[in-house]
């Protein structure tokens, strides 16, 4: 029972990170109907920016952790969001009216480009970072097994919940959110009604990249080591999460992320670590066969 509880905590914190990345996929898919293949690498770039920002702050002698975290968060989000914006502007916008495959290929190319440039600029080795938020609370101690929740895990869950709240409010309440939902439904109609399509799509990419940057920061802190290849696997899993929850649906992305995190944690704990990715994909295939629109997605209506 204690073991189960511990895995639940681990799975939830992992799932929260996947969920944050998955939102980027699901938003972009919802609005322009493409798989933003480079999103995983944007997340990786967010992680690298956080790492570099921490090191710079360390050099400057900032040792008050909450302040450092805030500064790093702002820097990582700003720089990574620029990447999100630029990728859309350079690689996707010229292809918006072409075939469905063209932007996907462009995105795959962008992903390869980003991965390799980070490898060349920062080296291929894993980059370690000393633990910034050490310590844990012991929840249950049965003598043989102690269930712990680390401060880092608490931070991850708190940040994710608050970001999700802000984000949901933004989509449902603000003009920007309304514009986004309008673009999702019918771009031409939205533009006739005065919505600036290009700007709305750009902002979507910026938001997605910002959330990915937050996820990158948390992964850097949580695992304490990052490398240039980080984005690929995390990206696939996050996309799986988005499809699992129903692509285009924001709560779905979060739910999918948490489910993937839980599946991974429990599979690693009770079966085998090696096959945890196979388990995640297996669940995805099952869901797609029996409920092709995902858990919370609306079924697509085909028009002739």
């Amino acid at each position, binding site marked *: 029972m204690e073991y189960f509880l511990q895995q639940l905590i681990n799975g939830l914190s992992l799932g929260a990170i996947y969920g944050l990345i998955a939102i980027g996929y699901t938003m972009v898919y919802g609005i322009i109907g493409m798989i933003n293949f480079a999103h995983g690498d944007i997340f990786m770039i967010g992680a690298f920016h956080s790492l570099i920002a921490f*090191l710079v702050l360390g050099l400057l002698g900032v040792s008050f952790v909450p302040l450092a975290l805030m500064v790093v968060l702002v820097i990582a989000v700003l720089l990574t969001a620029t990447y999100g914006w630029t990728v859309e502007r350079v690689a996707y916008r010229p292809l918006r009216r072409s075939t469905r495959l063209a932007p996907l290929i462009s995105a795959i*190319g962008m992903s390869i480009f980003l991965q390799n440039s980070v490898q060349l600029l920062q080296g291929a080795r894993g980059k370690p970072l000393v633990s910034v938020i050490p310590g844990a609370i012991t929840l249950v101690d049965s003598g043989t097994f102690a269930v712990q929740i680390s401060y880092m895990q608490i931070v991850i869950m708190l940040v994710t919940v608050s970001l999700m709240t802000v984000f949901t409010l933004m989509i449902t309440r603000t003009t920007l959110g309304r514009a986004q939902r309008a673009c999702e439904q019918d771009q031409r109609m939205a533009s006739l009604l005065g919505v600036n399509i290009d700007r709305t799509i750009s902002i979507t990419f910026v938001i997605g990249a910002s959330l990915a940057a937050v996820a990158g920061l948390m992964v850097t802190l949580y695992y304490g080591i990052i490398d240039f290849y980080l984005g690929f696997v995390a990206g696939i899993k996050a996309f799986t999460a988005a499809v699992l929850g129903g692509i285009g649906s924001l709560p779905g992305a979060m739910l999918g992320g948490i489910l993937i995190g839980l599946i991974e944690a429990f599979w690693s704990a009770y079966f085998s670590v090696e096959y945890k990715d*196979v388990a995640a994909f297996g669940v995805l295939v099952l869901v797609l066969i029996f409920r092709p629109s995902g858990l919370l997605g609306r079924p697509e209506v085909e028009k002739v």
Partner: protein
Amino acid sequence: MAVQVQAADIAQRAELDFAGILKRAAVAGLVTFLLTIGLVGFETVSSTGQLRLHTRFEAVAFAVAAVFVSYVCFEFLRARRPMIPLVVGAVAALVLLIPLVTGDPDLQWMLPFEAETLDWAALVVPLLLVGRALQLATAARARATGRQPPAVLGRIGVAFRRLTPLIGAALLGFAIVLPFLPFADRRLIDICTLVLTYIMLGWGLNIVVGLAGLLDLGYVAFYAVGAYSYALLSTTFGLSFWVCLPLAGALAALFGILLGFPVLRLRGDYLAIVTLGFGEMIRIVLINWWWFTGGPNGINNVERPSFFGLPFDRSPPEGTESFHTFFGLDYSPNHRVFFLYFLILACALITNFFTLRIRKLPLGRAWEALREDETACRALGINPTNTKLTAFAFGAMFAGFAGSFFAARQGFVSPESFVFIESAVILAIVVLGGLGSQVGIVLAAIVLIGIPEFFRELKDYRMLAFGLGMVLIMIWRPGGLLGRRDPTIRLHAAGEGAEQKRR
């Protein structure tokens, strides 16, 4: 008419507003600064378990300046004022080219980078900028004079498609005589064999993506199945290459059916992500099922293919003959290389022949129809799932053949050869070649595989350039290098309906 055009021309010239241009260029510079300050400006270096930071601010400054200046120049070109861009370009060319060409160490300070290899970036980036500048200049001219620029590439594409049979025959003839040409050394043949492997994979994937319109991001899985089938069958049962080749193809096709059956009901992008997942799953299984697949080390000492039973050994075992003794030739290691080359050429041609023929059969027609409109197909009584499944199985079968050839050529297989990036490369070949165009795939494979292979020394930059190339070609020619192939048969005269639809 002419007067009007000139008036418009003058009006456009007068419109140039410097403040606006400078502002926008400053924004572009700021974006560049934000992009480069983190990853370029600071280098994380591990030393004694701790990370240290090195700074490279000069590279950031260079990038920002380059973007700012070229942005301003582009704006001038757009407004048809080529003087300033020309001067800037000439100065930049002088500054960059003199130290590169002369190699004079005293002039090295003019180059922006410390590392020698990065200096090549100082050539490539300006070339890209010049290309873009030319494009802008012609576009601006066309806009001002009201004349459309001749769509040179489009016309080349059309001419190319008309000449396809000729070009195909010429390429084939060249491929056949290539090993006997004087300049054909072992390295070149090796590279050509590799290119042919990718051409075959491209043609195989083209059945799935180009003809049936199914986006498969995990094609490499079937390639892996073929390679491992041959490796396992030959090392466990001692079966020869010629027995294993059809078996490997059949096994890969079987896998295609097994994997395809549950997921082919899904549409487009879902299919893409599920096939991507399958590709990764097969790789994970190959790594972890160590007692069967040899784990990360793979399988070594896979038997090399023989010339229909005659091995290519220097000294065959007692009582048997090898290739060179049977034909009374002197032993040469090139025999095997040439044989492998012709083997993959034959395999690739079979794939091509299959595709060309099946397009004319009901099944091929059904694939193309399915790609164009699935709903209409269903209304006409075509079973979409079965039709897609056959395309998937045939595509997988050819990947299986290519896989067993790969295993035979390498002599070993390991999961490392079957990563996602391979699937992406094969898909890129198909899409860049122009979906469904057989000759286009050949060209794309030569561009994407052959040319980088000659630049092995720049290994680290190869994948970088590869990714960049994919993005640039897509932006430049979204329909692929040669343009998309229309269905073999259609109601409207070829081109008419399609042109309208595309617009």
